[in-house]
């Protein structure tokens, strides 16, 4: 953190002292990526980086944008909001990028979005689902876009699924009070579940650094829920699931897209078996875009792409397409081109931006069976 802070300080100072100095006019166009390559959601960050690199490489083999190659700057934010704003500062003020892809989680993307907005750098995240990423206090941040649906949609989808398919009458919710993503989905789920005449029998929060959930789980168990909704990332969900099983909790576990990691099963073992979560796409889908993408990713990285990587691939492609249409490296023109994108064919579906820069798309529901993700059904908005 200190290092990047001092880099930012150097960058700011050098701009202040040498107003005439501009970076040399290279024949490349710089795009930045902010992604967590270490820390608690590292598997997200890695697949996002892989997908971003594939998309840029493809654009460059097709001749780049307007005859110029795309150069990339990739910065690690450790899934920490402070690190993320340092990273955005570094990209904007030192590297002078024309556009940013990222970050990955909502809590890091919200500070990035504020900086991008004030510096007028078009930014697109593949994966941050919290509504506050594109709108703050009812005001649209018009330089922010995303290629995923929002939490209000996925919270409702899971409430509907629990009430309908799983025929749950009572549900319990455990969420991280310090995490915008977790808190946001928990609220939407609770309201939607209650609206559908279900009962939320326990609604409890924990802190970011908590590892002991036994008191909460004993409380949840006593309230006898049919399902336990865990809106958090895989590492936390794994820990909770494991302790839930040891406490003898029998409720079905369900959750949002934060579960999408091979590490979930590594942490939770068989405790997560049979759990359901909502996601953005399934690699088992047979649409040609999906088949091609999965094949390409497997050839290069030897594993199946997760939804986060896939969404970032779509986000990067949309950005490249927008730059082509703008035919300029002017951030304002790139922004306008992104906002007017219609019917863009991506891997995770067809994109049309609504007035908030959020796409309107369907969700899929995935079950964990034999330690693997199995595609269950598609849910339309």
């Amino acid at each position, binding site marked *: 953190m200190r290092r990047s802070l001092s880099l930012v300080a150097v960058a700011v100072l050098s701009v202040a002292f040498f107003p005439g100095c501009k970076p040399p006019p290279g024949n490349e166009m710089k795009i930045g990526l902010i992604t967590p390559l*270490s*820390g608690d959601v590292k598997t997200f960050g890695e697949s996002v980086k892989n997908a971003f690199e594939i998309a840029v490489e493809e654009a460059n083999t097709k001749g780049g944008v307007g005859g110029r190659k795309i150069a990339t700057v990739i910065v690690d934010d450790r899934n920490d909001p402070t690190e993320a704003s340092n990273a955005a500062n570094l990209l904007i003020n030192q590297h002078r990028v024309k556009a940013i892809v990222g970050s990955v989680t909502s809590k890091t993307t919200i500070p990035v979005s504020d900086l991008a907005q004030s510096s007028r750098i078009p930014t697109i995240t593949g994966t941050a689902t919290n509504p506050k990423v594109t709108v703050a206090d009812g005001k649209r941040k018009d330089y922010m876009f995303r290629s995923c649906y929002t939490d209000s949609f996925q919270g409702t989808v899971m409430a509907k699924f629990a009430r309908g398919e799983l025929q749950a009458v009572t549900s319990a919710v455990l969420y991280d009070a310090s995490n915008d993503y977790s808190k946001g989905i928990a609220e939407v789920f609770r309201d939607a579940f209650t609206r559908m005449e279900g009962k939320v029998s326990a609604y409890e929060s924990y802190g970011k650094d908590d*590892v*002991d959930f*036994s*008191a909460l789980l*004993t409380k949840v168990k006593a309230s006898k829920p049919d399902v336990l909704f865990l809106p958090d990332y895989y590492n936390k969900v*794994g*820990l909770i699931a494991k302790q839930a099983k040891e406490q003898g909790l029998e409720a079905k576990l369900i959750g949002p897209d934060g579960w999408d990691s091979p590490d979930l099963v590594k942490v939770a073992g068989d405790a997560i078996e049979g759990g359901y979560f909502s996601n953005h796409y399934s690699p088992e889908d047979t649409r040609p875009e999906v088949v091609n993408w999965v094949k390409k990713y497997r050839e290069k990285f030897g594993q199946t792409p997760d939804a986060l990587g896939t969404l970032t691939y779509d986000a990067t492609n949309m950005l490249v397409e927008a730059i082509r249409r703008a035919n300029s490296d002017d951030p304002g023109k790139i922004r306008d081109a992104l906002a007017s994108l219609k019917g863009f064919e991506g891997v995770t579906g067809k994109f049309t931006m609504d007035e908030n820069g959020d796409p309107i798309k369907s969700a899929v529901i995935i079950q964990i069976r034999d330690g693997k993700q199995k595609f269950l059904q598609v849910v339309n908005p």
Partner: protein
Amino acid sequence: MEYFLQQVINGLQIGFVYALIALGYTMVYGIVRLINFAHGDVFMIGAFIGLYAVERYQWPLTAVFVSAVVGCTILAVLIEQLAYRPLRHAPKIASLITAIGVSLFLEYFTSLRQVFGPNFYSFPRPFAVVSWNWHGILVTNIQAVIFFVTVFCLLLLQFIVFRTKMGRAMRAVSFDYVTAGLMGVNVNMVISFTFGLGAALAGVGGVLYGIAYPQVNTFMGFMPGLKAFTAAVLGGIGNIPGAVLGALIMGQSETMVSAYVSSAYRDGIAFVILILVLLWKPTGILGTPRTEKV
């Protein structure tokens, strides 16, 4: 009633782990009047040594504990000699700031990719989890291991402090280290030994923590360290039974607040209890007021 007893057991589980860490704080404070902020990070190193012993070398459980104890002891003695000893006669604030520096160093140095790495690692269970149901109250063998290992460590500590020559030297140094030195006690050795002993308990605590909450990262020592420090202050810092009592109170109050009030108030109420106790008894529950010597 079952619900209450189940929560008591949950509280005991976390309380015992806090106790193992709190003892290290309290012993070091009792002897050199230093709040060793790096203690929580020594606990983290213990958990990592346990992780390597279990995952990479698949050692039996006893060997896992012994390796963590040995590793943490060596580390703590090194920290004491390199960082704290040169400042023994400097103002207290210098040692305190150094302790914070050592803590940050351990956290960030070990999070380098060449050391432990910056990620979350899952701690494999060294034994299969079994739970017993007794009239609706669930007890797991993890809780049993935590209970027995902690009680064993406490008895051993009690034996060392009150039944051995080294223990007598520790008590003498704690009482008045200048006079103890004049009476022929090797003060430096005793202080190193105390750091090592505290760290050994933290090492055991680290392994137990890894077993109970199977995930480790290099910043994991911060919160348990803070809670254990609070527990030591609550029980009366410098007082060994006080640290255990304080830790058990912390564990129970956290659990009971989650169980009967709301998890959102958990840490808040635990600290309110601390403040109330300190208002009523500024030296902590079992602490004795220290008269200024002239």
